[in-house]
């Protein structure tokens, strides 16, 4: 079956590149109409050829055939342009440095005010904050656990982390059976659209732009759903978020992943 699929791919690749004789062209073309799976495979092979073209992994003769026989209309040229730009984008994202870990001015002031208080007051503030965030997070966790696909990392802000573990790396327990990690991040305003990045060392390993602010239990939060495969056991990650419109400095939090 696998072998037959590989042969089909090879044949379709040669068909698209204009490397088949006339009678084979007719046979392959007819099958793309009569067999829906074969037609889907044709679409896959087109996308793969385009990717190989922009990555420079076609052989010189295949590249010539691609240029001469496949890249013959504006629509396909546009496909190649977009595939190329996305490939450059991926390269760029995987090598760009992580933004510095800065807490925004407003929250830094609050944090500093808390730091100046006595330890008992700081403990009370921390408990209050935790109670107001843990309960809704727990509720969401219970709801999402029903289908066992999501691990909820809760409402974690740099402020809370700093109060609890100043300078320490937070351990983020992730259920190994889940395939998504939902992370709730408190933001100061009910407005704005955020970029969120997961960085590992100097590289961004996951990123989402245009995340809207939601309201949860009176708090303004942004929620992102990150594929669990993004995280590796025991590795450290920085989750950074920034309002795309206000351009205030990015905030971030550092986690070590613990797969349960």
């Amino acid at each position: 079956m696998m072998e037959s699929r590989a042969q089909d791919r090879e044949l379709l690749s040669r068909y698209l590149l204009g490397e088949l004789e006339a009678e084979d062209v007719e046979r392959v073309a007819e099958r793309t109409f009569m067999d829906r799976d074969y037609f889907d495979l044709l679409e896959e092979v087109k996308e793969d050829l385009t990717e190989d073209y922009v990555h420079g992994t076609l052989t010189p003769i295949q590249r010539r055939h691609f240029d001469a026989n496949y890249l013959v209309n504006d629509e396909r040229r546009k496909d190649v342009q977009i595939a190329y730009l996305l490939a450059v984008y991926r390269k760029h994202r995987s090598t760009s440095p992580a933004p510095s870990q800065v807490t925004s001015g407003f929250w830094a002031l609050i944090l500093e005010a808390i730091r100046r208080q006595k330890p008992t007051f700081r403990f009370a503030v921390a408990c209050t904050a935790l109670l107001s965030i843990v309960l809704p997070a727990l509720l969401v966790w219970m709801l999402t656990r029903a289908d066992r696909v999501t691990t909820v990392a809760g409402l974690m802000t740099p402020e809370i982390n700093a109060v609890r573990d100043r300078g320490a790396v937070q351990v983020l327990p992730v259920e190994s059976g889940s395939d998504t990690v939902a992370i709730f991040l408190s933001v100061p305003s009910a407005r704005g659209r955020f970029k969120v990045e997961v960085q590992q060392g100097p590289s961004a390993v996951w990123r989402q732009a245009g995340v809207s602010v939601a309201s949860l239990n009176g708090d303004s939060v942004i929620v992102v759903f990150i594929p669990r495969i993004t995280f590796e056991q025991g590795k450290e990650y920085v989750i950074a978020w920034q309002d795309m419109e206000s351009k205030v400095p990015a905030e971030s939090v550092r986690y070590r992943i613990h797969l349960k």
Partner: protein
Amino acid sequence: MGSVSEALKPKVETINQLVAWLKPDLPPAEGDDYVRGLTESLKIYFERSRVVASEDLVNETWAIVLRQINSGDLSQKDFASDDARRGYVFGVAKNLLREWVKKQGRRKEDPLQDGSDGPSVPPLEGAPVDCQKLLTELVDGVLDRLRSADRDIIQTAVLVDGPRRLEETATAMSISYDALRKRVSRAMARFKTAVVTSEPLSKQLQSALSCLGWVSE
């Protein structure tokens, strides 16, 4: 009187009606994709058959199909399945090609004889910082226009993992590779539509390409 005008009224005029004729069980939202796919298959067939005016023959194929449906010569009952109806469309294309070859008496020069190296794609690495900025703005701008489902799938399967890691991504998402591939294809089609239908984004695309050293034809 009414029945005569009803009889003269074309049965199939729009893409949705054509899709309903070819594949009645398909959700209306997928109609455009379906016809676009068939049109692309026709286009490739004519191109591979070295027809000079492949676009014209594609249009002529659809025109014949519509004429035959509307004349009452064809009905869905004449065909056992969607595959059979698709086969009928191909049959029309095949006959059209034969007539075209007979009339023209020649086909396009075989491009395989072309020894030129063709245009090359600039390298992916080492994009200048200014270009990276243009690119990021473009991608963010397009993502902003997409539905969250499309945005999420592109973020995960295209921008981070890349199309070459779809099998891993599918495993991580607990869905089949085929299902993910279809979702990615549809999301990418909408990504492309967002770029080509928006003038500012099209301009950003051209600026980013030109910044990266892409030579326009």
